[in-house]
C-alpha cells in the first residue's frame, strides 16, 4: 500500500442495525474523494465507519500501516462561555496557524466566543485540516461557513496536498464538483 491510504470493500455500517452501504473505493495519497448520495443514504455514517466510529456490519476497511486520521464531524458543541482562544483550540489538535486566512489570523488570541459564527466554524475546520494527518475526513465542511470561508476552503483544496488523502461528504454539489478528484455514489443499505 505504498501510495494507497485506504481500501474499502463492500462496507455496510450502522448503529443497532445496518443503515448505510455497501461502499467500495480505494484512496491514494493526493486524492480528494467526494461521497455523494441522497439525503438519508448514510454518508456521514459511512465516513465514521472508516475509522470505527460506528459499527461495521459487513465489508472490509484496510488502512495503510500507521495511518493518522483526522475527522471533522458535523454539528458543533456550544463553545460559548469557555475561556479558550483560537490559538489554544488549534494547539489541541496540533494544527499550525500558518496558512489561515488573514481575516482570522489576526483574531487567534481572542476568546472563541468573541468570534463570529462563520469564523468559529472555519477555525474548528482548520483545527482538523491543518492537524498532522495522512487522511482527512470532512463531514459537511461548508456548513455554517460564510462566503469568505467557503471561498478560502475551496482555494485550500485546490492547492496540492500530495502527502494526504481527503474524503468529503457534502450536500454542496458545487464544492464537490469543484474540488474532488473523484466522486463515489453512496446507496442505502438493503
Amino acid at each position, binding site marked *: 500500500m505504498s501510495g494507497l491510504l485506504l481500501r474499502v470493500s463492500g462496507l455496510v455500517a450502522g448503529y443497532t442495525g445496518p443503515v448505510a452501504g455497501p461502499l467500495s473505493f480505494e484512496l491514494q495519497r493526493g486524492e480528494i474523494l467526494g461521497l455523494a448520495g441522497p439525503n438519508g443514504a448514510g454518508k456521514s455514517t459511512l465516513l*465514521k465507519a472508516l*475509522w*470505527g*466510529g460506528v459499527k461495521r456490519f459487513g465489508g472490509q476497511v484496510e488502512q495503510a500501516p500507521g495511518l*493518522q*486520521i*483526522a*475527522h471533522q*464531524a458535523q454539528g458543533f*458543541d*456550544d*463553545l*460559548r*462561555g*469557555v*475561556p*479558550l*482562544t483560537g490559538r*489554544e*483550540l488549534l494547539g*489541541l*489538535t496540533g494544527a499550525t496557524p500558518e496558512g489561515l486566512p488573514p481575516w482570522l489570523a489576526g483574531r487567534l*488570541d481572542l*476568546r472563541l*466566543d468573541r468570534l463570529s459564527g462563520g469564523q468559529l466554524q472555519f477555525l*474548528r475546520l482548520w*483545527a*482538523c485540516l491543518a492537524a498532522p494527518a495522512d487522511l482527512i*475526513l470532512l463531514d459537511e465542511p461548508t456548513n455554517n461557513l460564510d462566503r469568505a470561508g467557503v471561498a478560502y476552503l475551496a482555494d485550500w483544496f485546490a492547492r496540492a496536498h500530495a502527502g494526504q488523502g481527503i474524503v468529503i461528504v457534502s450536500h454542496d454539489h458545487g464544492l464537490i464538483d469543484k474540488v474532488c478528484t473523484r466522486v463515489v455514489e453512496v446507496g442505502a443499505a438493503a
Partner: protein
Amino acid sequence: MSFELLFDPLFRVPFVTGLLLAGLLPLIGMYLRLRNEWLAALAFAQMASAGALVAMVTGWPMVLGGLLASVLAALAKGALARAGASAYALMLLLAWGGGVLLVANHPLAEQAGHALFDGQLYFTGDAHLIAAAVACAAVLPLLGWLSRPLLLARFFPEFYRARGRDERPRLMLFDLAAGLAVALATVSLGVMAAFALVFVPPLLAYRLGRSWRSGLIVAALTGMGGYSLAFALALGFDQPFGPLCALILVMAAALPGRHSGRM
C-alpha cells in the same frame, strides 16, 4: 471580635491546609465545568462525608474513609457515565441520606457530622496538611498532563478514537484525581465549602478569563483569596467557616464583568 487569633500558631496548620486545597479545587472545577460535570463535585463531597462518618464510627481514620468513599464514587461515575447527571444526583442523595441518619443515630458521629456539614476547618491537623501537600504535588502535574485530553474530549471528541487511541483511561484518571481532592477537601473544610471552591471560582473564571491559561489563574486566585478572607472573618467574628466561605465566593461571582450567557 478578635483578629489576634489569626496569628496564633494553633491556626497555622488549618490555614495552610485549606489554602493549598483552595488553590487546587478551583482548577479541578475548571475541568469539571468544561465537561458539564460540576454536580459530580457535590456528589463526591457528600460521598466523602458519608465515608468519613462511617470510618469514624467503625474506628478507622476519617480521612481514609472519606478518600475511599470518594474513590468508589469516581469509579461508579466512570461505570455510570451514560447516566450522567442522574448518577451524580443519586449518589448525592444516597450519601446525604446515609450520613444524616448516621449522625442522628450514633453519638460519636454527631459532632463530626456537624463539623463536616457546617465546615469547621479548625479541627484539621498535621495529617490533613501532609495529605493536602501530597495531593497538590501529585494532582497539579497530573492536571497539566491531562489538560489537553480533557479539552480535546470536549471540543473534538473523535480526535483520539479516529487515531485508534482510547482516551477513556485518562478521563478515568481525572475522575479519580478529582474524587480524591474533593474528598480530602471535604474532610478538611466541610462539604459545602469544598463544593463552593470547586464550583464558584470557575464560574468567575469562565466569565473573566482571556484564555484557558488565564482562566485557570483567575480560578485559583479567586479560590485562595475567597478562602483566606473567609478564614480571617470566621476567626475574627467567631463564625462557622463553611457558610462564610460559600457566601464570600458567591458574592465574588456576582461581581460585574463579561457575561458568557451560560450558567
